């Protein structure tokens, strides 16, 4: 059965069609879900895509966390459903409290759109289950606020529980502990700043993103419906 993925669209989101295209290329069916809706519908996984939800006004993700759909996203995650936040979606997940930490302005205070090499730090998450620790993947980054930060206690917990899933090989933005992506304690909610959907076709320079999005679909298919 085709895996159905809900891709949440906030006003100002802009990567929703790209995520849908990449998922379709992996055989999944993406459904765009409007932020003002309250019901995710019958989906096997949820993606919060990149962009500038609500213009990033106030602070990235700070307004989007109050969108009506977020209650449903929270319930889906609490029930064990796989939820992926990419870039702005990661920022929304931290603002919503579904992932720990926060994303602050890049060290250097510049927007950065560039390829980044990432090393898999944990293969036990909804995003990395199809990879092995130590694998190096090349994905583009595209952000101004991608500098991951958290308290010393949270960092210790993330490390102890191996919840850092991806690290930068060459830290582009000042993130603590080179963190590019983290997962929840149950490992079903994952956020990362790089864009796997932009690396799903060799014509665009890399198809390493297929391994990550493929892991998400495999994770979704391998569990009972929420």
């Amino acid at each position, binding site marked *: 059965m085709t895996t159905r993925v809900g891709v949440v669209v906030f006003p100002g989101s802009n990567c929703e069609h790209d995520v849908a295209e990449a998922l379709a290329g992996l055989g999944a069916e993406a459904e765009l879900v409007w932020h003002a809706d309250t019901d995710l519908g019958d989906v096997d996984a949820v993606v919060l895509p990149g962009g500038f939800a609500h213009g990033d006004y106030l602070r990235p993700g700070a307004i989007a966390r109050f969108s009506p759909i977020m209650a449903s996203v929270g319930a889906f995650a609490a029930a064990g459903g796989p939820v992926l936040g990419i870039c702005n979606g990661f920022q929304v997940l931290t603002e919503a409290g579904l992932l720990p930490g926060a994303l602050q302005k890049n060290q250097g205070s510049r*927007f950065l759109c560039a390829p980044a090499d990432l090393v898999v730090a944990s293969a036990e998450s909804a995003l990395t289950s199809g990879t092995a620790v130590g694998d190096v993947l090349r994905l583009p980054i595209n952000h101004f606020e991608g500098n991951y930060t958290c308290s010393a206690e949270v960092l210790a917990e993330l490390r102890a529980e191996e919840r850092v899933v991806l690290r930068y090989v060459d830290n582009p933005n000042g993130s603590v502990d080179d963190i590019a992506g983290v997962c929840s304690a149950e490992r079903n909610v994952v956020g990362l700043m790089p864009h796997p959907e932009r690396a799903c076709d060799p014509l665009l320079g890399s198809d390493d993103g297929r391994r990550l999005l493929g892991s998400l679909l495999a994770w979704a298919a391998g569990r009972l419906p929420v």
Partner: protein
Amino acid sequence: MPLALHRELGLTDDEAEAITGLLGRPANDLELAMYAVMWSEHCSYKSSRVHLGRLPFTAPWVLAGFGENAGVVDVGDGLAVALRIESHNHPSAIEPYQGAATGVGGIIRDIFTMGARPIALLDSLHFGPLDNPRNRWVMEGVVSGVSGYGNSVGVPTVGGELSVRPCFTGNPLVNVACIGLMRHERLVLARAEGVGNLAVLLGSSTGRDGIGGVSVLASAEFSDGDEAKRPSVQVGDPFEEKRLIEACLALFDADLVVGIQDLGGAGLCCATSEIAANGGLGMDVDVRTVPLREQGMVPAEIMTSESQERMLAIVEPGDLDAVLAVCRRWEVQATVVGTVTTGGRLRILDGPAGPGSTSIVLADVPAATLHDDAPRYRRPLAAPADLAARRADDPAHLPEPADCGPAVLEMLADTSWVWSQYDHQLFLNTVEGPGGDAAILRVKAPGLPASRRGLALTTDSNSRWCALDPRAGTALLLAEGVLNVACVGARPLAVVNCLNFGNPEHPEVMWQLSEAVDGLADTCRAMGLPVVGGNVSLYNSSDGADIDPTPVIGVLGVIDELVRRPPGAGLTEGGHLLLLGPTAGAGALAGSRWAETAHGHRGGALPVLDVEAHLAVCDVVRDLVTDSLVDGVHDVSDGGLALALAEMAVRTGVGFDVVVEAGHAGLFSESPSRVVVCVPRAHVADVTRRAGEAGVAVTPLGHAGGDRLVVAGLVDVAVPEAVATWTGSLPAKLQLTGI
């Protein structure tokens, strides 16, 4: 006193008299304000229009062209591309961030006004030398503005160019091009149809920002104390524009608008009069209904405000509720502000129109006169007095450097500090992004059928060439653009141009403009290419010194089948380096970067373009790229063969060992129609044969490989040194530290 008012608004006495003649009475203050913005240089092209008519506008594949908000061309498979380029020079000089940001916003509106989804931006940026702190401030602000607005509004910036020359101190150039994609049948024109239809204002509330921007800022020279003009610079809100794009595309999808026009220069006054006049109709506008951002705005302010992120849609009354529902979903404000009328008059009312109306008529003018009757000046033109002397002063006599290495290093500059701040990948179309000879995009957008075609895009300018000879220089620019798209395997389809010049009241400037138009027109005709859109920016000068003439030429090309990434401007170990193209004149240094930077020499006669020979080179290169016979390809342009080879080396970290005829002149000459190709040994014979059959000369240069850049007897530089110079050049000039 009325005389004082019209002058204060930027109208001449003759123009004020002409308005009185058109109305049959003296205009009132509001009417005068409306004519002043509409008849400004920026809106009316009154100095340039008599020359622009010489450009070729049509071709069988042009679906919409000159006079529309953007050109639209057929790219096959039932799809069309909308494209345009526009300047935002003066606002960027005063307030770099907002000037550049609103330039991006404005050109994007021009594209989706046509019904197309904007899919890519290119920016052509020109600044004064970066040892001047104000120039650095301007450049950093402009780059941040393009980044801040373009990234957030969700349109990738896929290419462009950067130049640094003294004439741009105090008057930077910020030109932004945008392209959009749509099905043919989706083309929407800015025409009011149907008497009784409603004019619905979409988007932002109207404020006092940008009042008289076109007349105060864009149509006059700069001088000291221009900070006082800052209120004439608009402020951009990319989130508002993003919602406006999505709402408008949704309205088009549902077939809910009969015509639409964006609000740019001259605001509501321009949009209402243009859309009415284009449809041969009139409009009643009730100023009371326009949502305002500030209290106490007078009608003249409301009509001429350049507040950003606004559109005017013409809607059938029965569709109004559906239109309002779409706008509510996207959180876009939508307000009925007017009604389409018969009789061709634009009436500004205080209160609602209609039978039995008691509203006060604030202005009542024939809508078309705001456009069609704007003055057209055949301003005096004169070649500069020293033209013959300058052309006779050939740089051949300049002393040959003992070592050309330092001059080559001096020219190397990686522009990625600029474009890494731009999202250049959104929509998963960018096969080749900024930094190459041309950007390459897949032809794809949400909701459109799949296509295997690709688009190639480039912007080119060279103010140094055009200062020496605006006619020949502009011809060479078009040739360069066409060659650039050939280097990525594309055939050219259409041209857009942004003509940046000085003060049109100076006869030398008008001569430059006229010459540049002829150079572009003649070369376009010879190449069979239409000019489908553009913009003229005059009064680019500071304290009386005009900028060097800077036409910026954008070329759109099409790749019939985009199945692999083209080789790009690089080298591979062991590759044979061949120079394709004419050898005659290949030692000419006139107009070269070397002559200017090494010796401050700006004389001589520019090389003449042989269109037929040029197109033969383009055809050969396009086929070599399409058939994957070359591993690297780069055109010879600014900086000559020296810079072409060095750029190929630093991009791949591979050196070369070559022999160049004619010494330093052969190395730095910028004579046209030449391409360096890096060919695997197995394909050398095939490449040579193909070129020979096409009548294109092949000059073997040497080989790629090793860890040094070697031109026998002229250059010997280590690859790591060249790479470090290349990557470090711009950050060092901007005096940046850290990451």
